[in-house]
């Protein structure tokens, strides 16, 4: 047995040394898939390593304690000061107006103390010490700003803007802040000022939406990971009700880390799709190769080679080639991050640590080899199980037997291992699981369609028209490319159509759903004493309608049914609600009562401050396993308040209106320092005037234009869609290669048929008509499955990933599927044209 194995491998080696032809597509498929997985993995590692090693600079300290709407009190501050070097920064949104010009915009204000930054350097241009930059000169504070602000306000460097009660001279351009990781979603340009200047603006009002971050540089003895953890534990123990969010330098940018991991998980799956599509090419290449070696296999069997010997010999050849493809893919994948480095330089807010990382290389190699194995076993098993006599005639008398159950099992096991590996290695198990299930469904559907079409073509009444008859018989003839064409074209079209459907759905939502309901403005930080004058002011303007104003308090859920929120088991899609402060309101806000789907709204005059009730968003309650009657604790401005859930509301977070997860019953929060949030619908021609009036009358109120925000969000979504399109390119390219391979596999048969038909008197046009019918049927089959699959996929993306409604744009679907099918089939026809142009005599001599 071992001797046989050695001989089989020796023979395989001999053949390999002589060189094998016909494996270009096989290699290209593996290289593309492996390279994309290895490249994405390596780039992700480089970014994550960079994040890990620069945690201190990115966080701005070893530890950060973050508070909302309040500063540390004296005791807290003294405790922290005694245990490290502290720097405080405050972040808020504010309105900046250009002096002497009728221009204003929302800015993301960041006020820093003299110790900022504790680590790293803030890069401002022209370069100067921050102390000098921020200094008050003749009543003007200094500021460093994002370049976009100049364009927005139409001022130049040195220009003056007003924020609240203070005037600022724009003295420098802010190039880079060490502690600002990834821009993310911002509503306005960044403006860096001093803590003193912020106090001078008068924007620090009770309840103003200000985040205070206290960064602490710990002494050397406690800067180890254990030391930092102990420090945080001690701080929490000393001030259990402080309500701060601690964060350490190993977790400096959890959002960015999560984003990188999510994108990596997604792109790895895109790469895996390319690899799996390429697997069809692998199977076709192996099948074609074995078809070509039929006589040799038969000869080997005639002189004593067993089926297993044949299997091992050719498996060794195929896997050796797969190794070459995988190795080339790994080399290419390792190069990708270095190329990306050029594109990313200047965009990344931190330095990625480029290098060759073992983990993504090993997983990419494993994916590549498993794919090759999974797709090669079947054709190899069929070749080894066919008797030599049948092999000599297989071209015309195919064996439709299934391989021995061991090989069927081995194929199944390889695919299972591939799916398991994809799930185990993914940072998003749910997504990977969904992908694996989706891939199985897509494959089964496409395979079944391929087989179904072959069965149908074989069993339909034979058309009397010769050309249709030949076209149909081409679909099921031995070696027919039908399954491979349906698979590769079907998957390619599915991908294209899914992208187009998701794209058009986003555009539809932007166009139809939001503007109909969305207000024009959000007004933030309206003080209680400003509420009435504010409403009066808006009332004076025509074109202003639907003014709604509610009090808003920030609070963090700290306990769910007696379990601290950090230990509570909640579903992934609601984790965000526990990760920080959330806005909440109280009383009887308009419309809230109508949203109740379970439980009852409290009586209008309910005011029991000792038995506070809360109304909770139903979707979130479900994810947190909360129900009516359960208790939750919310930390509001350093005070823990336990409340009983009185009812659950259905809240639509997509309508761009004021939506609160929690509404607290009256009598509890009225005396807490807080501001109001208002929305209003304003006719387009009045928007500028209303904004101007509000900003001039209430300088502390931030005005957010919903349209601009939606445009920004839309822009981000479009960027995301463009990214997905770009990432899918590899898969499409692989699909095209597989399609080309599949069509090429059928080329020999087509050439023969074309020549015989021409000898019998058929014109080129008539032969071409035959192929047109064949390709049209193939295109229609692939297009139909692609339409079904893409609707399911786009619906799943809309429903589960984007949590939006979905309406398939049939026009888009038809255009992409029909256009794609026609384009792909035109390529096929183009390739077949050469068959028609080959002189008959040449083929007849060699046939």
């Amino acid at each position, binding site marked *: 047995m071992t001797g046989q194995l050695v001989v089989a491998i020796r023979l395989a080696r001999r053949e390999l040394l002589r060189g094998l032809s016909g494996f270009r597509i096989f290699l290209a498929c593996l290289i593309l898939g492996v390279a994309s997985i290895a490249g994405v993995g390596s780039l992700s590692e480089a970014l994550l390593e960079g994040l890990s090693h620069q945690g201190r600079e990115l966080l701005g300290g070893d530890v950060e304690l973050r508070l909302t709407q309040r500063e540390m009190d004296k005791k807290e501050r003294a405790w922290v000061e005694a245990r490290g070097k502290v720097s405080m920064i405050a972040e808020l949104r504010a309105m900046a107006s250009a002096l002497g010009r009728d221009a204003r915009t929302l800015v993301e204000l960041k006020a820093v103390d003299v110790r900022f930054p504790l680590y790293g350097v803030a890069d401002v241009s022209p370069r100067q010490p921050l102390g000098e930059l921020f200094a008050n000169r003749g009543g003007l504070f200094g500021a460093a700003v994002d370049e976009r602000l100049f364009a927005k306000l139409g001022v130049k460097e040195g220009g003056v803007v007003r924020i609240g009660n203070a005037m600022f001279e724009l003295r420098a351009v802010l190039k880079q802040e060490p502690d600002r990781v990834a821009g993310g979603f911002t509503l306005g340009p960044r403006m860096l000022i001093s803590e003193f200047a912020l106090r001078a603006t008068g924007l620090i009002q009770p309840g103003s939406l200000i985040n205070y971050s206290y960064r602490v540089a710990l002494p050397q003895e406690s800067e180890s990971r254990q030391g930092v953890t102990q420090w945080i534990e001690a701080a929490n123990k000393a001030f259990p009700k402080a309500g701060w969010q601690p964060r350490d330098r190993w977790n400096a940018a959890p959002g960015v880390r999560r984003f990188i991991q999510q994108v990596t998980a997604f792109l790895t799956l895109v790469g895996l799709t390319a690899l799996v599509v390429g697997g069809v090419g692998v199977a076709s290449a192996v099948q074609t190769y074995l078809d070509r070696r039929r006589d040799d296999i038969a000869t080997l069997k005639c002189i004593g080679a067993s089926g297993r010997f044949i299997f091992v010999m050719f498996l060794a050849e195929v896997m050796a080639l797969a190794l070459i493809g995988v190795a080339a893919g790994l080399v290419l994948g390792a190069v990708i991050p270095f190329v990306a480095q050029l594109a990313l330089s200047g965009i990344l807010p931190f330095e990625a640590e480029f290098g060759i990382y073992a983990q993504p290389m090993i997983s990419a190699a494993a994916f590549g080899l498993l794919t090759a194995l999974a797709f090669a076993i079947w054709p190899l098993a069929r070749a080894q199980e066919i008797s030599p006599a049948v092999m000599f005639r297989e071209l*015309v*008398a195919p064996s439709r037997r299934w391989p021995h159950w061991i090989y069927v099992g081995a194929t199944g096991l390889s695919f299972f291992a591939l799916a398991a590996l994809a799930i185990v290695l993914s940072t998003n198990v749910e997504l990977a699981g969904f992908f694996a299930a989706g891939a199985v469904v897509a494959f089964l559907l496409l395979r079944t369609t391929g087989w179904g079409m072959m069965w149908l073509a074989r069993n339909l009444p034979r058309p009397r028209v*010769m050309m249709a*008859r030949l076209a149909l*018989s081409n679909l099921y003839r031995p070696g027919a490319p039908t399954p491979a064409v349906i698979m590769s074209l079907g998957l390619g079209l599915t991908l294209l159509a899914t992208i187009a459907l998701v794209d058009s759905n986003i555009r539809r939502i932007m166009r139809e759903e939001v503007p109909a309901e969305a207000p024009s403005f959000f007004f933030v930080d309206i003080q209680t004493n400003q509420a009435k004058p504010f409403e009066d002011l808006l009332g004076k303007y025509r074109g202003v309608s639907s003014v709604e104003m509610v009090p808003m308090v920030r609070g963090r859920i700290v306990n769910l049914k007696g379990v601290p929120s950090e230990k509570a088991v909640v579903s992934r899609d609601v984790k965000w609600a526990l990760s920080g402060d959330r806005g909440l309101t109280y009383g009887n806000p308009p419309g809230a009562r109508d949203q109740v789907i379970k439980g009852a709204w409290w009586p209008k005059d309910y005011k029991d401050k000792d038995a506070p009730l809360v109304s909770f968003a139903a979707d979130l309650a479900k994810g947190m396993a909360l129900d009516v009657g359960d208790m939750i604790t919310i930390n509001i401005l350093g005070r823990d308040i336990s409340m009983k859930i009185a009812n659950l509301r259905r809240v639509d977070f997509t309508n761009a209106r004021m939506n609160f997860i929690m509404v607290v019953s009256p009598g509890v929060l009225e005396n807490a320092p807080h501001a109001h949030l208002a929305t209003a619908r304003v006719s387009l021609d009045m928007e500028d005037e209303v904004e101007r009036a509000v900003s001039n009358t209430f300088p502390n109120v931030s005005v957010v234009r919903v349209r601009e925000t939606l445009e920004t969000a839309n822009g981000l979504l479009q960027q995301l869609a463009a990214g997905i399109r770009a990432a899918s390119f590899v898969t499409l390219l692989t699909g095209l290669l597989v399609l080309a391979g599949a069509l090429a596999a059928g080329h020999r048969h087509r050439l023969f048929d074309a020549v*015989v*038909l021409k*000898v019998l*008197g058929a014109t080129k046009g*008539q032969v071409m008509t035959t192929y047109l019918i064949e390709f049209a049927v193939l295109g229609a089959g692939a297009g139909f499955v692609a339409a079904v699959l893409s609707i399911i996929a786009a619906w799943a993306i809309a429903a589960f990933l984007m949590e939006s409604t979905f309406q398939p744009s049939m026009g888009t679907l038809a255009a992409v599927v029909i256009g794609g099918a026609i384009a792909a089939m035109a390529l096929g026809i183009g390739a077949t044209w050469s068959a028609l142009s080959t002189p008959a005599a040449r083929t007849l001599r060699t046939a």
Partner: protein
Amino acid sequence: MSQAGPVNILNGIELVIRQGEAVGLVGPSGSGKSTLLMVMTGLERPTSGKVTVKAQELSAFSEDESARFRRGNVGIVFQSFHLIPTMTALENVAVPLELALAPNAFERAKEELEAVGLGHRLEHYPSQLSGGEQQRVALARALAPKPSLLFADEPTGNLDGRTGAEIIEMMFKLQRERGSTLILVTHDETLARRCDRIVKLRDGHIESIEDGAHEEAAPLDPALVAVAE
């Protein structure tokens, strides 16, 4: 055309074949027999010279015109049968009739298959037929449109002696019955002797033309005139 430049396979061929005549083309390998057959069927064009059939210059036709001309005028039997593997015997025979838009193509195809003794194999695919049977299907296909010219290129080359003899008998019988002109390419001089005339080729030119053993006098009208190089 080879990589080294043009190669003259045929050299100063001048041949007139009369209607109803059986002509054997013999010669060693590489003498140009198959090339001459290709030229005479319009499957290949001579570099210079012309082929005239029924007063039409075949060599001046485009590829499609040649194809159209072959419908109903030319039938070819190949050494390797060249049946379409995905079509049944009946469908294979019906193809040239369908291309010629002949009415009742399938009925006629069935009659042709019965004529070659395959009435019981109509629905069989080539892979289900023996070599001799496949060649009989090929013969039926070649004769189905009742062509005036029947070409056979080593029709027994892939068959055993007995089966080959049967095919030859059948071919001559049907050719005589239908008055077709037969051009038979063969290595086998004994077989060629059964024709009216034997044209011997060597190095691309006609070495000799001899009378064969065939008894019937050939009509005088020329069926095909080939002047090719």
